[in-house]
């Protein structure tokens, strides 16, 4: 039978509604900034300049964007199998450990072009391993993946603390960090890379990992929508009974999907450890794993959406940092609150505005329809 709620055209669903949600978030943020006695318009200017004002700022923005693409894809892939991977943070952290161990072990012996593929493999493998245990427990023991991945985040934090403080710390150092990698284990920065073509930009953390991020987007798009494995994942995600009926081994599917998710999250390690810090250190993921959830939600689990959403969050991170620097009364916590508002409106309340927009859209279509009928009649 006909139902009163109907599908909206795609451009409204993926275009207009997210835009309205972001504007709502900014509107409320503006009110908050007004309340503490600052000028919201000025704040917006600072955020935009801070994120895009010069190549140095853009470099930072894109560096954060790269992280969010990896973690957003990780969440999205799991989401297609209707698995909620909250463990991106821990998987990225452990992925970075993998990269670090590999680089520390090999950077004295082999050149960059050998280290790079091995490091990518190590980050993926370590990330996947960290996702494997919760996945196994979900598939074969029925422990809920949300709970286990959260717990694995905490385990990852403790494990890294232990390893850095007791194993990897540079002798004679106070801060729990490993020694710096040699240049053979350093991902070329974007400054170096475009320098090969004679272009000069300022040095920023932006490095060639962004290409890996874009490649991952293409891969995920092909994998989810153009392979039989992606087909099985989507079927399982939409309808578990249908997947059983089709003879899909759902337990293996859960484990496989989560491992792929872990691989993608683990790639954050390439961007941060190999591309930015060039040493293993504490807390380099800095919440990117959690932001990935919002990114995937906003990006509708589609690589193109994820790139756009990552860019938005990259802007907020970098511009927000500038904001708290330029206007001291807007502290870091306030910037976090604004980011939180964006997540709230675009993630948790993503469908809040939908009924209203649906009504408006229907009204417009119907008034057009009757107008046409009248002219026809």
């Amino acid at each position, binding site marked *: 039978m*006909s139902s009163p709620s109907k599908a909206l055209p795609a451009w409204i669903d993926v275009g207009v509604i997210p835009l309205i949600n972001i504007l709502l978030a900014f509107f409320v943020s503006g009110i908050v900034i007004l309340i503490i006695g600052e000028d919201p318009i000025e704040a917006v200017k600072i955020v935009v300049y801070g994120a895009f004002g010069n190549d140095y700022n853009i470099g930072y923005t894109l560096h954060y964007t790269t992280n969010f693409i990896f973690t957003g894809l990780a969440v999205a892939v799991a989401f297609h199998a209707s698995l909620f991977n909250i463990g991106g943070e821990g998987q990225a952290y452990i992925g970075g450990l993998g990269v670090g161990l590999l680089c520390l072990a090999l950077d004295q012996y082999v050149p960059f072009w050998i280290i790079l593929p091995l490091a990518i493999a190590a980050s993926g493998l370590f990330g996947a391993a960290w996702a494997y245990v919760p996945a196994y427990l979900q598939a074969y023991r029925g422990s809920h993946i949300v709970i286990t991945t959260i717990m694995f985040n905490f385990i990852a934090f403790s494990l890294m603390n232990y390893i850095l403080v007791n194993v990897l710390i540079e002798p004679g150092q106070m801060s729990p960090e490993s020694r710096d990698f040699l240049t053979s284990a350093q991902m070329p920065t974007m400054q170096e890379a475009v320098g090969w073509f004679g272009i000069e930009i300022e040095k920023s953390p932006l490095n060639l990992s962004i290409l890996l991020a874009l490649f991952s987007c293409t891969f995920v798009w092909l994998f989810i929508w153009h392979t039989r494995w992606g087909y099985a994942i989507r*079927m399982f995600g939409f309808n578990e009974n249908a997947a059983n*009926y089709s003879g899909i081994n759902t337990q293996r599917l859960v484990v496989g999907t989560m491992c792929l998710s872990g691989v993608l999250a683990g790639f954050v390690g390439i961007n941060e450890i190999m591309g930015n810090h060039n040493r293993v250190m504490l807390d380099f993921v800095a919440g990117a794993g959690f932001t990935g959830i919002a990114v995937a939600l906003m990006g509708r689990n589609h690589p193109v959406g994820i790139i756009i959403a990552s860019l938005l969050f990259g802007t907020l991170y970098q511009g927000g940092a500038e904001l708290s620097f330029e206007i001291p009364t807007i502290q870091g916590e306030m910037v976090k609150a604004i980011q939180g508002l964006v997540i709230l409106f675009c993630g948790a309340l993503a469908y809040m505005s939908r009924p209203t927009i649906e009504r408006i859209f229907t009204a417009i279509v119907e008034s057009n329809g009757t107008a046409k009928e009248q002219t026809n009649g």
Partner: protein
Amino acid sequence: MSVERIKTQGSEAVGGQSAPPPAIELKAISKSFGPVKANQNVDLKVLPGTIHGIIGENGAGKSTLMSILYGFYEADSGEILINGQKKKIHSSRDAISFGIGMVHQHFMLVETFTVLENVMLGAEGAPLLNKSSQSARKELLKLSKEYSLAVDPDAMTGDLPVGLQQRVEILKALYRGAEILILDEPTGVLTPQETDQLFKILDILRSRGVSIILITHKLQEIMAITDRVSVMRAGTMVSERETSETSKNELAELMVGRKVLLEVDKTDANPGEILLEAKNLSYKEDGVTKLDNVSLTLRAGEIVGIAGVSGNGQTELLAALSGICPLQSGSIDIGSTQITPKNHKNPKEFRELSVGHVPEDRHRMGMVTAFTAQETAIMGFHEDPAYNGKILMNNKAVQEHCTRLMQDYDVRPEDPKLKSANFSGGNQQKLVLAREMDRRPEVLLVGQPTRGVDIGAIEFIHKNLIAMRDAGSAILVVSVELEEIMSLSDRILVMFEGRIVGEVSGKEADARQLGLLMGNAGTQSTGSEQQNNNNTTHSEEIPA
């Protein structure tokens, strides 16, 4: 069908001299959902104290019309008159206050509440339950007596048989002062005996002056109980008939808009070798026995029907025979392969053994509504090399396959890229059947072949099943539509509480006998009472 014609004095009031205003009159009701015109200029007149049937295919607009009457939707234009007075119905609360009650197809009951609590729910009347429950109990007993709707007020609703739960729904409506009762597909979940019971209740209600609107797609029910019948097609009211002056064939033709074949046209079966033999299948879920020592054989060139009230093990039987549920005990022989609890095969391997399976509930299992039609068309076969390159899927091959299926099985619209959810029930079912039948499996398991499917498509599906039988496949049909089982099957097995309690040859089967088997001993007393259901003594007994 077991339902016999029940007519009483109630219908004679129709032609009375000083005609009272119609209990309900709808004038030129229109309702659109976007571009879809669900109702266009629909008129309906229901005379007081009559049973008015509304019949139509799925999507004809019956439910929309009733939703407007019950206040779920508001009409875009048109008028509603209740007892001759113009009313605006904005919500179901309005509808209830105007004396309209509705019994939904899927009951709106809290299973963990007692009957009394369910009846009171939402109409408690006072913040403290104690006092209101006392008066509610009194009122409930009074209603039970007045309308011969015996039911224990303190029974736990979830423990009651379906027929009694429905009675609670009716009591709920009456408790709220309903004088006009809308019943939406009320017999879908009932055994033939329970259906007879229901019709007797409706008859009593009619004789007490309640006006009833009966929505159904079952022609024999219209013929059995209604006074007048309105036929809807594609959002419009196409005609209205005095039930005594029409026939099933005429109504079917009006519904579909062309002549339809109601009887399945088939020759005698010519059973050949055994293609599937199940021995002593038992299956327990959470300690509850779902299958109890079931054995059956399927031979080439025959259709075996499984009759039974839903929930008596049919679902589990299909799941076991298609590999969805691993066997717990017993064995299945398919050709030379034996499947035992130790040698389990998954559904994919069952397909490779040439077992096709059309699941009972296509939305739950047979398709993915969010998938495009072409994605649904390869479910279970998505690893077939025909649809795959080395790594990427060959979407073009998938699309071509789906287009061909759509052509061969008349699936409309013929658009492989359309989302599966956007096809009508009949076309969804045809797509699922096409997927399973196209590979010419030796054994085909079909659950509810025509659930939620319109008459035109039913005819098509039945024809195709028979053709497949004649081509030498063994077919197992599970259906809650007894009429369908009887007209399709060469052999009928009846299931009750996970056991096969009887086998009847398709030719000799009659609904009453099957109905008794379906209800097993529990309803035998009710059954014998049915023998003389033309007398209208209102004494009733409640099946325990």
